[in-house]
């Protein structure tokens, strides 16, 4: 009887909630790893675009600022106001 109970218990351990939790954790880790695969390549592209665009944005901002300053000066130097 004792042997039968022990055998049943050993058979049931893989189906226990504890074991299921471990399986879910393993699945989550593997899915996460799969989902994140290629992130290095993505980071490379993102950084390349972000830093170059940052410079482009800065140049654009300076350009707009200069244009505004020039327009402001030409307005205030005797141009007739409507």
């Amino acid at each position: 009887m004792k042997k039968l109970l022990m055998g049943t218990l050993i058979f049931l351990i893989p189906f226990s909630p504890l074991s299921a939790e471990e399986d879910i954790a393993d699945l989550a880790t593997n899915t996460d790893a799969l989902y994140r695969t290629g992130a290095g390549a993505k980071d490379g592209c993102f950084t390349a675009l972000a830093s170059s665009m940052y410079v482009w944005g800065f140049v654009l901002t300076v350009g707009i600022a200069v244009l505004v300053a020039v327009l402001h000066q030409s307005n205030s130097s005797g141009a007739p106001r409507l």
Partner: protein
Amino acid sequence: MKLIALTAFLFSFWTAVLNADYCYFVPPKGWEIVNPQKLTGRVQVQFLGKSSKGFYPSLNLAFEEVNLTMPEYLKAVKKIHEADRNNTWRDLGKIPTKAGVAHLTQIDSATASGTVRILQVLFLKDHTVYILTGSALKEEFAAYYKEFEKAFKSLTVTGDLVSTVPQAERQEKLKASLATTTIDNLRTLEKLLHKEFADMGAHWQFLVMQSALQNH
């Protein structure tokens, strides 16, 4: 038992330290290194060139730990890039580098400043993918292609930075200098690197300085 565990840990730690690989490339002359604190994600280093159109060409290097083969990694990368409708991804085949045969891919990305062409060199060694990314405006790309190609082919993975210096005499000189370098005289090492190791490139110099800092 604890002693055995501690010895095993120390052995594996030092094995890992001694086998740690350095990866570097030779960026084009005159390109500026970006402050490492401004880099994102897995990107280790980035260099920016100059452009009259405001969109600066760039080269950056990223690492990623994987448990995949190169074809599987390429498949994952393709999926990630093609998930963005603004991107067009192409596998351009193989490219020889100093580290070994790598894969070259191309991404054209539509942005506010025009279409940007991005070339990526992917090299897999010991479960690490080394990703060298070069980008420039598509309309200016032809002007930078030679520089990108030269930088891509210079990709090197090594366990010892000194051994990559071509001449034995220069290796000895560098070893001697590194042995006497302390926090107080890092400037001397920096001057030596700029003066006598300019051919090794700014990235290699950066890594030598970084390892000298870590060792002292």
